[in-house]
C-alpha cells in the first residue's frame, strides 16, 4: 500500500462560535452536504478506498445518521477521541500510530478544494520527500459577513513561507507570532539556496503527505502536539541541520538499535532521515541530474530530509474555519458538486423563481411566489409564499413564514422566521425564532441575544 489517508475531524471550530455552538464543525452543511463530506469526496474521487477518521463521539453519532455520509463508499475507520480540546493534530496522529503502516496523507475536515491531488503526491514520490503539502493563493472574500462591520480585522497573524527558485522546495516556514525580532534566515540556507522567494498571502490547506518515519518520530517525541504549529516548522528547519546532512551508514545502524533506550534527541532526530539504501545511492550517483546548479554539491545538497510544497494558482481551495469562508464555500459549493442543484424529493411549486445557482435540499417545500436566488436551502425546510431569499444560507429544518425578505443571512437549523420578517446580513442561531414583522440588519442571534427580539419594532446594528 502506498498511502493511508487520515481525516482530522475533531476540531472545534473555535473561530465561528455562532455556527458551531450547536452543530460540531465537521457536520456543518456546505452545499447541503456535511463539511467533512467534501474532503472525503476528494479522497474518494482520487481513488482512496479506506480513510481513518479521527473525530469525537458526537460527530460519529451524527455521521451514522446523516444520509449524505452514506453516499461515501470508502471504508471509514472512525477513531474517537475526547472532546476536551487538549489533543492537537499531532497528538491525534500519535494516538493512531499503531494503525499507520505506510506513509500518511493527513487531511483536515474543513478543506474544500478541487486540486489535482497527484501534484502534491508526485512531489512526495518523485523526490522521496519527507513532507509534501498543499498551499494556495488566498482569495479575498467578497461577500458581506453577517454581523461584521467594515473590513476584516487585519490583526491576524501572517504566515511567512520561503520557497526556492523552482517554487517547489520548502525552505522556510514561520508565523509572524514567532518572529519577534524580525525574520532571520540561517546563512547555511542562503549558501545552499541563494534565491529564495518569501510569500505571505498563502493559505495552508492542511493537506500533508508525511513519511511513516515521521509518525514514528512523533510517537517518541511527545512534546509536539500540533502538526501545523510545531511539527512542520521543525521538519522544515531540520532539512538544513548538520546532523541530518552527514550521517554515515554505520552510525545509522548503531543509532537505530538504540532508538528507544537512548533518551537523547540525537537518535530520534536521525530516525527521520530517510536512509537511502545503497542501491538508491548508487543510482543517484550515476544519474546526471541535479536539482540546483552553481555550487559544488550534489543533488539535494546531500540532504536526506526534504520538504516540498505545491502552491496552487488557480482552482478552489478553501478552509472553512471562519464565517466568511463558510459563506464563500457555500456560494461555490454548487460548482463543486455534480448533483443537480435541486434535490428530486423537494416539492417546489411552479410559480417559484429559482436562480440557477441555488441549491435546494431534500424534502423541502417551497410555496408559490417565492424567489430564491444564490442561496442554499437545507433539507426539510419549509418556505412559505411570497418569500424572497437572496444570497443566504438556510440550514436544515428551518421554517420561513410568508412574506419574509431574507438577504445575505445565515440561518441555522431548526430556526423559525416569523411572518413578514425582514432580515439583512443576519445570523440566526440554532432553533431561534424571529418574531413576525421583525426587522434586523447585521445582527447575530444566539441564545444570548434572543431576548432583544421579542417585539416587532425594528432593531438595527446588533452585536
Amino acid at each position, binding site marked *: *500500500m502506498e*498511502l493511508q489517508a487520515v481525516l482530522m475531524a475533531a476540531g472545534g471550530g473555535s473561530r465561528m462560535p455562532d455556527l458551531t455552538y450547536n452543530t460540531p464543525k465537521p457536520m456543518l452543511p456546505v452545499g447541503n452536504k456535511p463539511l467533512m463530506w467534501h474532503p472525503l469526496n476528494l479522497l474518494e474521487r482520487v481513488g*482512496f478506498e479506506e480513510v481513518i477518521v479521527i473525530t469525537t463521539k458526537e460527530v460519529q453519532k451524527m455521521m451514522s445518521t446523516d444520509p449524505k455520509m452514506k453516499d461515501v463508499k470508502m471504508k471509514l475507520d472512525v477513531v474517537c477521541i475526547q472532546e476536551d480540546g487538549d489533543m492537537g493534530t499531532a497528538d491525534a496522529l500519535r494516538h493512531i500510530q499503531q494503525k499507520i503502516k505506510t506513509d500518511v496523507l493527513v487531511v483536515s475536515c474543513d478543506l474544500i478544494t478541487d486540486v489535482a491531488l*497527484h501534484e502534491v503526491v*508526485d512531489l512526495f514520490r*518523485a523526490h522521496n520527500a519527507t513532507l509534501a503539502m498543499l498551499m494556495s493563493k488566498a482569495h479575498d472574500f467578497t461577500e458581506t459577513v453577517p454581523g461584521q462591520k467594515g473590513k476584516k480585522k487585519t490583526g491576524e497573524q501572517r504566515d511567512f513561507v520561503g520557497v526556492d527558485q523552482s517554487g517547489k522546495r520548502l525552505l522556510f516556514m514561520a508565523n509572524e507570532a514567532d518572529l519577534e525580532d524580525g525574520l532571520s534566515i540561517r546563512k547555511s540556507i542562503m549558501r545552499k539556496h541563494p534565491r529564495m522567494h518569501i510569500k505571505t498571502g498563502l493559505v495552508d490547506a492542511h493537506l500533508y503527505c508525511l513519511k511513516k518515519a515521521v509518525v514514528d518520530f512523533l510517537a517518541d517525541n511527545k512534546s509536539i502536539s500540533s502538526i501545523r504549529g510545531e511539527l512542520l516548522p521543525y521538519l522544515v528547519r531540520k532539512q538544513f541541520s548538520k546532523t541530518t546532512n552527514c550521517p554515515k551508514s554505520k552510525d545509522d545502524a548503531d543509532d537505530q538499535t538504540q532508538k528507544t533506550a537512548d533518551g537523547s534527541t540525537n537518535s530520534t532526530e536521525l530516525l527521520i532521515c530517510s536512509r537511502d539504501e545503497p*542501491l538508491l545511492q548508487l543510482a543517484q550517483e*550515476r544519474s546526471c*541530474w541535479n536539482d540546483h546548479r552553481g555550487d*559544488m554539491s550534489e543533488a539535494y545538497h546531500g540532504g536526506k530530509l526534504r520538504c516540498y510544497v505545491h502552491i496552487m494558482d488557480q482552482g478552489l481551495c478553501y478552509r472553512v474555519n471562519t464565517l466568511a469562508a463558510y459563506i464563500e464555500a457555500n456560494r461555490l459549493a454548487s460548482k463543486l458538486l455534480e448533483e443537480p442543484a435541486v434535490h428530486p424529493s423537494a416539492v417546489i411549486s411552479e410559480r417559484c423563481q429559482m436562480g440557477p445557482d441555488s441549491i435546494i435540499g431534500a424534502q423541502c417545500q417551497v410555496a408559490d411566489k417565492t424567489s430564491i436566488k444564490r442561496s442554499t436551502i437545507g433539507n426539510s425546510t419549509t418556505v412559505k409564499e411570497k418569500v424572497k431569499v437572496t444570497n443566504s444560507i438556510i440550514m436544515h429544518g428551518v421554517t420561513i413564514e410568508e412574506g419574509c425578505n431574507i438577504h445575505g443571512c445565515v440561518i441555522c437549523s431548526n430556526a423559525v422566521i416569523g411572518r413578514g420578517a425582514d432580515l439583512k446580513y443576519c445570523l440566526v442561531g440554532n432553533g431561534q425564532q424571529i418574531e413576525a414583522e421583525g426587522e434586523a440588519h447585521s445582527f447575530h442571534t444566539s441564545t444570548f441575544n434572543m431576548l432583544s427580539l421579542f417585539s416587532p419594532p425594528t432593531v438595527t446594528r446588533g452585536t
Partner: protein
Amino acid sequence: MAESGVTDGLCNTDDIERSKTEGKELTKEEKQRLRKEKKQQKKNKEKNDEKTSHEGEKKKNKKKKEEQPAGSASQPPAQPSPKAVPAPAPPPPAAAAVPVPASEAPAPADKPAKSKADLKAERRARQEAERASKGKKGDVGQPAPTGKLKAPPSELQPVVKRLPEHVQVDNPEVVKKLAKKLERQQIPLRSDYGYKVSLFSHLHQYSRKAPLTQQLGIPSTVIHPAIVRLGLQYSQGIVAGSNARSVALLHAFQQVIRDYTTPPNEELSRDLVNKLKPYISFLNQCRPLSASMGNAIKYIKKEISNIPSQCKEEEAKIKLLNCIERYINEKIVLAAKAIAKYSIEKISDGDVILVYGCSSLVNHILCEAFEKKRKFRVIVVDSRPRLEGREALRRLVQKGISCTYVLISAVSYILPEVSKVFLGAHALLANGYVMSRVGTSQIALVAKAFNVPVLVCCETYKFCERVQTDSFVSNELDDPDDLIVTRKGKTQLEHWQKVPSLGLLNLVYDVTPPDFVDLVITDLGMIPCTSVPVVLRVKNVDQ
C-alpha cells in the same frame, strides 16, 4: 530438397520459401508434401489456391495460437517493406516459423475465393501434424521470450521481424493495439503532445507537464508504489543516464520481489513474470526503455523462469534478490572498475581529453585516472537543452581536475588542442554503431576530421542486438517545451504551438558510425567497433 521433382515453378519457390522459414526440421514434411503434390500435378491452379489458402490458414491458426497481430500480415502491400529497413527486433518471434509477409509477397497474387472443403480438411490434418512436431522442437530451440534477440545463430535464415510498437506511432492500428494491451493491463495510455516534425512523426512525443500519474489512482494498487515512483523519476528526468536508470530499475524490482506473495495455485516462476509485464509497460509509457534496461529485464525474467518449481517462496525470493545484487555488482560496478583500469593505460601524462555531456562511466574513469596521479586536463563539451555537461564539470572539478567548458558549437575551435576524445555510450548496436546522446556523432565526426582518436567506453551489458544505420528510424523525442528559454524576461517561443509551420524537435539520441570510432573499451577488454557481434555471440552462448 524441394528443387528435384516438382514441376510447378511457383510451387517451387513457395516450397523453398517455406522451407527457409520453417527450418530444416520439416524436411520430412516437405517430402510428404512433394509426394502428394506430384499426385495432383494436373490441377495447377488448384494447387496455387491450396498453397495460398494453406498458408492463409496456417497463418490464421498460428495467429490464434500466438496472438500475433493480424494487422500487418493482412496487408502485405501496405507494409513499409520490412526487409529494406534493418528493423530493430520485434516482439517474440515464437516458434521458428514467422508467418511473414515476405514469404507471401512472392506468393501468387491471385487468391480466388473457391477452395475445396476436402482439400482443406487434408491441409488441416497435415497442419496439425506439422504443428505437433514443430511445437516440440520449437520450445527447445526457442530464444528467451522477450525482446530483441535475433533467431539463434543455428538457424541462419533471414527471418524478417516485425517493427516494434514505439516506432510505429503514426500507424493507427498499431496504436489501437497498444491501447488495447494497456487497457488489459490496467495501465493508462499517455497521449502525445504537440506537433511532431514529419520526419519523426512515427515516434512518441510526451509532455513533462502531463505525467502518467494524472490518470492513476493515488494509492496506486495496480502498480507497485516503487514502480510508480520510478516512472515519475524517469519522466521528470530525476534519474537520467543509462547506468542510473538500470540500477534504479533493478532496485525497484527488488522491492517488488520483496513485497510479492505467490497467489494460491500459481507458480512463482510464471506468476512473477506476468506481474512484471504491466510494470514494464508502465515504465515504457513514462519513458521509453533504454537498451541497458531491456537487457536487465531480460536477465531478470530469465532468472525468474529458471526458478525450480519445488523451491520455496522465501528461498526463491532471496535467490532473486541476490541475483539482482550480483548483476549490478558484476555488470556495472566491477565493469566500471575494469574499464577504468584499461582506460588508464590509454591516458598518458600531458593529455588533453575531450568529453561530451555527462557519462557516469567516463566521469568515473577520469576520476580514477586522476587518483592514479596521471596528469591531464579535460575539456567538457556541452549542449542544449539538457546542459548535462555542467554536472560533469561539477563532478570533475570537485575532484580537482582542471577543466575547460565549451558548448558544442565551439568544438571545431577547441579540437586542435585535444589529444583524445572519450565518449560514453547509451548502447552499442550489433553492426558496430554507437548510440549515444545527440551530438556525439558530431563530435566523433569532427574528431575524425582532425585525426584525434575517439575512444568509446561502454559496459557489455549495454550491447544490444539491434541494428540501425541512422538516427531517424528509432529514437526518443523529448518534451519540445524544453527548448523554450526565457532570456531577459522574454520568451520568444512561448506560443510555438499557434504558429502552424513551426515544429520543435528535441532529439535525445543519435548513432555514430564505426568509422569514426577508433576503439571501444569494455570490461572484456579493448575491442574495435566491429567486434560487437562477436561479443554478443559469445554472451549468448554463455547464457
